[in-house]
């Protein structure tokens, strides 16, 4: 038996023994996720135990180095762990912006002290991070951001505001883009800093979304003192860090195109329209669903291939824009079809039957997929420019 086969066998046995049954049911939406953080309220004891057991082995972030608390697994082992978790329907033990975004950026651009300080806390789910990129005047044109940080000798003084800051009101720390040179060209005067959300001068104000939920905030900074050692990378070179982080964010958002563990669409539709001769009685709906499944299943393979390309060092650096664009558009299409399949039953916003409009809220939430992390149009611009090398893009 090869080492990998042994690893697979042992991993499966460990997961079977350690993943509580409650953590092997489909995760319905963002509220079911384990986000961690100083003030996180676990939804159940099982959720807490599952996170802790995985964190102990570093398997909340299996591919980070052991010295920073990660699992130290190779890409092959990480892939096997994921496959085995999927096979046993294990939920993700811990999700966070630290895992998806900040961690990879720190591994590449952070200094030793920053890695030692922040990465283990991300692995153990102790600190929850939020992302301070967008501003009212700087969305797609992110590099035009205006939040300023002035050099005050031993610290930076940050003033300005951010918007669409997801979970800022629940986060312990923020990674934030600030302007440190106002005379330079817009991409060249930006720095990447970290600070605590409890620092005096930081306030947040939740924004109500069309889904009826408030997962994001306006975030204001008034004379916020940020220690100088919290600068990541080089002063005024924060754009490099920001862009690198975005590729990881995009990979993650693109992964939503894989669809969750919910009921297969064919079954949802069968309840609504019935089945004749083993086929959905509405042939046009059946065709729409079949086409979506073709594209969705193929996209799953494209994600797998993206990982293998990265491992073989053959992936284009802007490949994440493809995954982000395609995966999010696919996810929107899927939820449109969920709504179509549910028919009028699915439209009840407040009712026990519809679980308080669960499908509706999820459908509405997906509309943000092609906006957050850079819009679909922006991803197409990036592909045009960086992959296809088209003039003027």
């Amino acid at each position: 038996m090869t080492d990998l086969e042994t690893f697979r066998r042992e991993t499966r046995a460990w997961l079977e023994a350690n993943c509580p049954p409650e953590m092997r049911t489909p995760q319905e939406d963002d509220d079911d996720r384990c986000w961690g953080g100083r003030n996180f309220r676990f939804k159940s004891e099982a959720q807490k135990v599952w996170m802790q057991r995985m964190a102990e082995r570093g398997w909340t972030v299996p591919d980070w180095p052991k010295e920073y608390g990660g699992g130290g697994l190779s890409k092959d082992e990480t892939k096997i762990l994921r496959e085995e978790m999927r096979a046993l329907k294990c939920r993700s033990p811990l999700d966070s912006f630290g895992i998806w975004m900040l961690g990879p950026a720190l591994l590449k651009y952070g200094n030793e002290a920053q890695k030692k300080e922040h990465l283990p806390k991300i692995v153990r789910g102790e600190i929850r991070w939020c992302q301070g990129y967008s501003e009212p005047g700087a969305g797609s044109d992110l590099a035009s951001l205006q939040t300023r940080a002035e050099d005050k000798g031993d610290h930076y003084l940050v003033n300005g505001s951010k918007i669409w800051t997801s979970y800022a009101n629940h986060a312990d720390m923020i990674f934030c883009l600030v302007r440190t040179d106002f005379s330079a060209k817009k991409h060249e005067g930006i720095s990447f800093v970290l600070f605590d959300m409890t620092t005096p001068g930081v306030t947040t104000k939740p924004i109500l979304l069309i889904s009826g939920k408030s997962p994001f905030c306006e975030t204001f900074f008034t004379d916020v003192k940020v220690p100088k050692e919290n600068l990541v990378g080089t002063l005024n070179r924060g754009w490099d860090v920001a862009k690198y982080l975005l590729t990881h964010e995009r990979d993650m958002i693109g992964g939503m195109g894989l669809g969750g563990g919910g009921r297969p669409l064919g079954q949802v539709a069968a309840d609504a329209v019935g089945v004749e001769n083993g086929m959905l009685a509405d042939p046009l709906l059946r065709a729409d669903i079949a086409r979506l499944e073709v594209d969705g299943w193929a996209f799953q393979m494209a994600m797998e291939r993206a990982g293998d390309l990265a491992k073989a060092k053959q992936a284009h650096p802007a490949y994440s824009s493809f995954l982000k664009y395609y995966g999010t558009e696919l996810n929107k299409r899927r939820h449109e079809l969920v709504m179509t399949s549910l028919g009028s039953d699915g439209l009840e916003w407040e009712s026990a039957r519809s679980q308080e409009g669960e499908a509706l809220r999820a459908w509405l939430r997906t509309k943000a997929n092609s906006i957050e992390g850079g819009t679909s149009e922006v991803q197409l611009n990036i592909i045009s420019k960086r992959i296809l090398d088209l003039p003027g893009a």
Partner: protein
Amino acid sequence: MALVLNEEQSMLRDSARGLIADRGPVAQLRKLRDDRDASGFSRELWKEFADMGFAGILVPEENGGSALGHVEAGVVMEEIGRNLTSSPFLSTALLGATAMKRAGGARAGEILSKIAAGQILLALACDEKSKHNPHHVETRATRAGNGFTLKGAKTFVVDGHVADLILVVARTAGGVNDKEGVTLLAVDPKAKGVSVERTIMVDAHNAARITFDDVHVDADAVLGEVDNGARIVSDALNVGRAAVAAELVGVGDEAFDRTVAYLKERKQFGKAIGEFQGLQHRVSHLYCELEVTRAAVLKALQTLDQAPANAAPFVSLAKARACASTNLAVQEAVQMHGGIGMTDAVDIGLFMKRARVGQELFGDSRFHADRIARLRGY
């Protein structure tokens, strides 16, 4: 199994790319078409395919083949697609060889050896109607003397007019649409009662209609077992589908590459047309569609190698995707070339024509999406 070509496969791709671009370019297809060439493919190139081991790519070593896998076969098909090469590779080296391997027996072994040596051309005669429906078999083989009498008609038989041997899917039991009850027969096209009509197709690739009018075939014409041919046929078709999907990837990629190059070269309103965001977004979207298909096709080919019993849904996925994305690629290609894209002098239209035929071959995207829906129970 990583979803990328390994080192040997990449090397094979490089040599296939070199050979096919050099000896079977689009210009060759044009010439075959314009000369109304009797065989419709280059016999010299086919000889080189045999010398390079491509003709015997799926043939076992004991029959003189190179015993490679479906990924390798797909690599060659992709280059064939890029160059719109007319070649018996699909009909003989892939469909024919797969059928012979599944059939087994001495006769099949001899044929395999000839395939590898480039000494025989085969054609699979399956379809009877204008839309692919492999279970619909009206052509009947009725027992007579020491063999059968064959009656019926086949259409869209790739390389039917150049084949030395026609592999006929004939009904020997059951009703017209039964899955089982078919037998695969090796029929000599020169036998009495066989008439072969070459059909000149839009893509200038080879196809034929073949009629069997009370043709007598001996018992030793049976490949595999009587009434039990369905598995052989479906295995051969699955290989053919995955192979055509790989060819379509090549067709789509080449149409795409040529279009991106044209966007950088053609100027209107004082700038390269590739500067217009309306076109940038469309071509970038197309890039994404082609990438998704590439993964699905490679996965299907790998599954045919690693777990052939599970391959059917993967193959359908690959073919469904390849039909759709290549169809988009060739349409966008013509549109973005403007008027010149409509001319016969420019190659881009030829890609559209081949894509149209490739889609129809062994099931279009609807056929395969439907197959997936059935497998998933809705």
